[in-house]
């Protein structure tokens, strides 16, 4: 089995960027996670008062106010997150060569909030093309470009293309970004599916998903190249797999069989035993169906080792951020590895932050990141500390 990135492996995370309900920058989310607070509130930028659930992780107005240029909300936050990730990656002796840097993008609905209101000529295409065009015109990236829409695992598919582009020599660095906004279409759709809960799962007794909007970005480069630029890598992405249930267009397979298969293959590809996992970061765990699926999958794949691995999630703070999840899990995993701590600790069975300590030591420098997509798509990524050879 060829490693992710082939003979250019391991691939390093050299920069991260985020715009979320916590504010602009990954540090704002990190502070919110450390405090154990949340940013879920009534949605105000779009009409929501008539919806059964009108709360979510909405990006503060002041963040958008400083993000000028591209016309759509999605493109503005994505550009801000990408610029942060590039600036972070450039904290070395040599900057990224933008002529040899590509962009792989993931999104569910792209610029749908504005596209709905566009004149018919503009609507000839689709809101995903609209997002890509606005974003690419405003960025100096000149390498290969691609766009994937695979529900909340879209970012993982973008990572897959980024790994291809690096391995096959089309680029020296790849920005992987994923974005979705919390407009009326998105919030109404999840309301209609009966998937949403009333309050932040960190503090409420009621269960159900809380949506959030976000743009996440990471820069992926071959480790050797990052070191050659004089940049200290944040973490290494050593393996990833996606497996699909193939059973339903909406509900996850609660048995967790496909997710268990993806976990087992990822660990095998990465050469990490279940006993050597330091943490597992999960998404969509506030949904009872997803939590049951994740619990069953982890039990199947990890066996007795599961009891010793702390589980974490950024979602109690900012909600389930749709396509942005499967890139944000990489940034979250990198942060856990750099701090050598698991924050916050969540209880998968209840979807809550535990009542005891919300931070535990990271006992092994490897984090398994799980993401789930509507229709039973199960993404798994294995991130290890940068001091590890992978």
């Amino acid at each position, binding site marked *: 089995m060829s490693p992710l990135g082939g003979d250019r492996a391991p691939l390093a995370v050299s920069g991260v960027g985020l715009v979320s309900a916590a504010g602009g920058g990954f540090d704002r989310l990190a502070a919110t996670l450390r405090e154990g607070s949340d940013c879920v509130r009534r949605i105000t930028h779009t009409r929501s008062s008539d919806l059964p659930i009108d709360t979510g992780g909405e990006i503060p107005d002041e963040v958008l106010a400083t993000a000028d240029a591209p016309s759509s909300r999605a493109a503005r936050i994505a550009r801000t997150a990408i610029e942060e990730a590039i600036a972070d990656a450039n904290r070395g002796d040599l900057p990224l060569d933008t002529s040899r840097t590509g962009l792989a993008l993931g999104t569910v609905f792209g610029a749908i909030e504005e596209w709905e209101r566009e004149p018919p000529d503009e609507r000839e295409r689709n809101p995903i093309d609209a997002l890509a065009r606005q974003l690419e015109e405003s960025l100096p990236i000149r390498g290969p470009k691609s766009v*994937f829409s695979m529900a909340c695992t879209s970012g993982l598919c973008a990572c897959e293309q980024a790994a291809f582009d690096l391995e096959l020599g089309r680029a020296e660095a790849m920005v992987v970004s994923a974005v979705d906004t919390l407009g009326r279409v998105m919030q109404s759709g999840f309301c209609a599916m009966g998937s949403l809960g009333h309050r932040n799962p960190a503090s409420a007794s009621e269960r159900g998903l809380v949506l959030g909007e976000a743009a996440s970005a990471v820069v992926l480069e071959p480790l050797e190249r990052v070191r050659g630029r004089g940049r200290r890598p944040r973490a290494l992405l050593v393996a990833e797999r996606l497996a699909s249930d193939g059973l339903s267009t909406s509900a996850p397979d609660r048995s967790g069989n496909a997710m268990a298969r993806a976990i087992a293959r990822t660990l095998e590809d990465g050469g990490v035993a279940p006993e050597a996992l330091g943490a597992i970061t999960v998404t969509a765990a506030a949904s009872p169906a997803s939590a049951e699926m994740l619990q069953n999958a982890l039990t199947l794949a990890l066996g007795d080792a599961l009891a010793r691995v702390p589980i974490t999630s950024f979602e109690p703070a900012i909600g389930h951020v749709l396509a942005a999840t499967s890139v944000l899990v990489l940034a979250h995993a990198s942060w856990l590895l750099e701090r050598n701590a698991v924050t916050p600790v969540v209880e998968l069975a209840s979807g809550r932050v535990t009542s005891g300590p919300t931070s535990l030591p990271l006992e092994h420098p490897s984090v398994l990141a799980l993401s789930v997509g509507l229709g039973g798509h199960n993404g798994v990524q294995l991130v290890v500390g940068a001091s590890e050879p992978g």
Partner: protein
Amino acid sequence: MTLRCRLTGAWCPWPLEPGAIGVSLDEQALVVPEAFPGRFSPLRGFPEVFEPLPLVSGTALLRSGLWRPGSGAVVSGGLVVGIDRLFVEPMLRFAAQVQGRYGHAVSPMTFVESHPSTIPTFLGMLYGLSDYQTTVVRGGISGGLALSHAVDALRTQRLERVLVVGASGDRDGGRLATALCLDTGLSDGPGLEVAIERASAGRDGGETADLLLAIAAWAGRPEPSVLTVSSTDELLDETVGFVLERQGTGAVEGSSLQ
């Protein structure tokens, strides 16, 4: 870098136009809701929004020997879909449903159908495809980039077999769908053995067409031995191209232009 694989393909327009499609009437009769026991209710028709993707996908898999109508068995392999507008109509329909006050008229099924990812999800459900799946959306080169993603996955040994599906549509509901099955695990068997290589990013010349359709149609003819094909999106100013060379004689039965 050249990839050698076996290829089968199928294509057809929607609404179906008898006598002008790349699947035979016999094949059409096989890819029906009754052919998916345990996977799809024979009492329901395929959702109109996905037509004719089940037909072209089933025909390509049938020609490859990987799927048998009525078996309900799992087909091992990846699935990469490239689309431009197929999800737009349900998306607009759902957006209209939520324009007024939220109520019972808001359909969760319309919301699900407006996700580009629901197309591979639906095909995966029919054919039991449970490996890696994705949807590529990039204007007029979505199909070409879907093929490129699939070829990358095969070349880097992330996958051994991929079903690549492309669909382009117009605002009046007209559609053209193509499916190609690429397999690196078989040295012989059904289909055509080909060498496939992505051409350079510039405008390479050769045939400019709906890329997947051109490949499926070429596979159905005994010649020429080499196909150079590209597609371009003017708005993005981007071109994707491929060179394919057949490694033997013969053709994929039924997929030629008629």
